[in-house]
C-alpha cells in the first residue's frame, strides 16, 4: 500500500503516516507498506462480523443459491477463526435460524459440538431457498434441513470456482 491508500483505508492523516515512517513506528509503517490494499481491506473486514451475519440471515440478503454459496465458500476458506461462528450462535440479536446456521458452521469447521440456548426446531435449510431434506447428519444435529453441498464446496476449494 502506498501512503495515500493507507490514509484512505485507516483514516490516518498523511502527516502522521510520515511521522510513523521516520519515527519509532517505522515497523508498523513497513508492515502496512508490505500489505496489498485489497488484502488489508479484507483483513479489516474479518474483524467485523457484518458479512457473516448477512450469510446467516440469508433470507434477507440473497435471492440466489449461487450468490450465497460464492460468498459463504470464500469466508469458509479465508482462514478466519471458527470461534467467530460460535459467538454468533450465542448472539441473541440474531434470529434463531441464523444462530442455528452459525452453530452448524462452527461444528463443520471445528468438529466440535455446541449447545444452542433454545430448543425450538428451525424449519429451514442452510440457504433459505433450499428446503430439501438431506442425509446430512451434522445439519440434522442442529435441526437444519440441509447443510453444505460438499461436492460444490470441494470444487471451490480446489479450483476457486464452481
Amino acid at each position, binding site marked *: 500500500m502506498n501512503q495515500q491508500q493507507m490514509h484512505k483505508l485507516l483514516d490516518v492523516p498523511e502527516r502522521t503516516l510520515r511521522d510513523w515512517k521516520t519515527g519509532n513506528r517505522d515497523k508498523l509503517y513497513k508492515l502496512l507498506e508490505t500489505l496489498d490494499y485489497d488484502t488489508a481491506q479484507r483483513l479489516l473486514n474479518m474483524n467485523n462480523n457484518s458479512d457473516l451475519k448477512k450469510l446467516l440471515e440469508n433470507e434477507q440478503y440473497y435471492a440466489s443459491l449461487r450468490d450465497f454459496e460464492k460468498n459463504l465458500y470464500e469466508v469458509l476458506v479465508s482462514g478466519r477463526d471458527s470461534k467467530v461462528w460460535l459467538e454468533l450462535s450465542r448472539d441473541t440479536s440474531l434470529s434463531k435460524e441464523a444462530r442455528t446456521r452459525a452453530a452448524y458452521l462452527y461444528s463443520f469447521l471445528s468438529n*466440535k*459440538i455446541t449447545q444452542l440456548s433454545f430448543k425450538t426446531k428451525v424449519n429451514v435449510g442452510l440457504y433459505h431457498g433450499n428446503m430439501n431434506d*438431506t442425509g446430512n*447428519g451434522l445439519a440434522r444435529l442442529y435441526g437444519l434441513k440441509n447443510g453444505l453441498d460438499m461436492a460444490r464446496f470441494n470444487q471451490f476449494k480446489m479450483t476457486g470456482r464452481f
Partner: protein
Amino acid sequence: MIATSFKEAIIDMMAEIAKQIPDSHKQTPVKAYLTGGGAVHYYCNSRVSDDVDLIMQFSVKIPEDLFVVWLNDEGTLEQVHYDHTYNSTFGLLHEDYEDRAVHMITYRR
C-alpha cells in the same frame, strides 16, 4: 441425543434408513445385514473404516449424502457415512451369512 460411540452411530444410521421406508411399504420386516468395517468393529471393537456397508433384501431409497455424527471421547465430532458403492457381489461372504448373522437391533417407527 447424539451418539457417543461408533456402535451407537451405526444404530443411528439404521434408524435414519428405517425412516426412509414409507409406512405403506412395510409389509414385512426389512432385514439389513451389516458387513465390512462396521461388522468387524462389533466383533473386535477396533475401527477399520468410517463407513457403513449394508446388504438389504429390498431396494431402499437412501439419501445420497447420508451420514450421521457422533461424539468421541475427546469431545470431537466424527462422521459415519453410508457406503453407496458397496455391494455383496465382489467380496467373500459366508454362504450361510443370513442364518448365522447376529441380531443387532429391531427398529420400529
